[in-house]
């Protein structure tokens, strides 16, 4: 009955940057808005403290709590979307691993521990490649990108 493996999303991206800059971008509210289509990460980053992803005005938040904060190598928080009816699902978990490689950084994002039958898995699988592509652009060129689905939401 329980044979179906629980879904897990893993994404690896290589960025011309330093671990410190990548870690700062993942944890700084103002910087996050520049690559996360205007969304902001908000927390005091103490273990067990609340984490929120403040979505654009008119949209609801993602909430969670801080699980790991080891600058500049590892960050993790629980991830509980409160939009599109997803608040009925329990939280999942996202972890960031940052490894230095001669003037570059390998960033590995693992999003797992989704509740059974999770609908948020599909959403985050679509969302992370854009967020992390935009983060790479911001750190390498100074310009982030806005996801097309946010544009659609704005004009709707």
């Amino acid at each position, binding site marked *: 009955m329980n044979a179906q493996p629980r879904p897990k999303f893993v*994404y*690896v*991206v*290589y*960025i*011309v940057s330093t671990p410190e800059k990548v870690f700062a971008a993942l944890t700084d509210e103002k910087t996050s808005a520049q690559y996360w289509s205007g969304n902001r990460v908000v927390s005091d980053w103490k273990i067990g403290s609340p984490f929120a992803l403040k979505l654009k005005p008119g949209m609801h938040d993602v909430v969670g709590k801080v699980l790991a904060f080891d600058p500049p190598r590892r960050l993790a928080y629980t991830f509980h979307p409160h939009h599109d009816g997803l608040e009925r699902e329990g939280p999942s978990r996202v972890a960031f691993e940052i490894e230095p*490689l*001669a*003037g*570059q950084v*390998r960033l590995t994002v693992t999003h797992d521990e989704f509740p059974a039958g999770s609908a948020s898995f599909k959403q985050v699988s679509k969302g992370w*490649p*854009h967020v992390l*592509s*935009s983060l*790479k*652009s911001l750190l*390498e*060129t100074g*310009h982030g*990108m*806005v*996801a*097309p689905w946010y*544009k659609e939401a704005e004009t709707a």
Partner: protein
Amino acid sequence: MIDVAKFKPKTVYVTYIASTPQKIWDALTQAAFTSQFFFGRTIEIEPKVGGSFVLRMPDGRVDVKGEVVAFDPPQRLAVTWTVDWNEQMRELPACLVTYEIAQAGEAVRLTMTEAHQWDVPDDLLAGGRMGWPVILSSLKSVLETGKPLSVKMEPPKEMIAALERLKKKA
């Protein structure tokens, strides 16, 4: 002609690039570009379905060879893919690598899908799962900044071990 329906996606990588579909198409299909971001490999591709496809290493050896399955510039490129540098890998059923390029707002979405026609063990997928993020991150950097990454990489240990097991079985 191969039966594309037999191939099941095993590794998918999506990246968004601040560029145009035509520039991404050119980067994927022109040797002067691939030598920058594809671990120094140069592409040789006949621009038609059924044409030949080769990725050549900097020392001239063939790394990958295959056949063009889809050639729709600047949207869709698909090639069969047989790794040629290793005797065991050369004997494996070919996989299918597809690139899909689509405008997504101000940026362009590039989707790479590696699909297989047999129940390939995860250990043999490790090479692609390690390599594609490097290759496609470097492609994005080349198009956005003009400079590739310089990540050195060896084939993953679990893949080499799986190939040794295949050798013993043969």
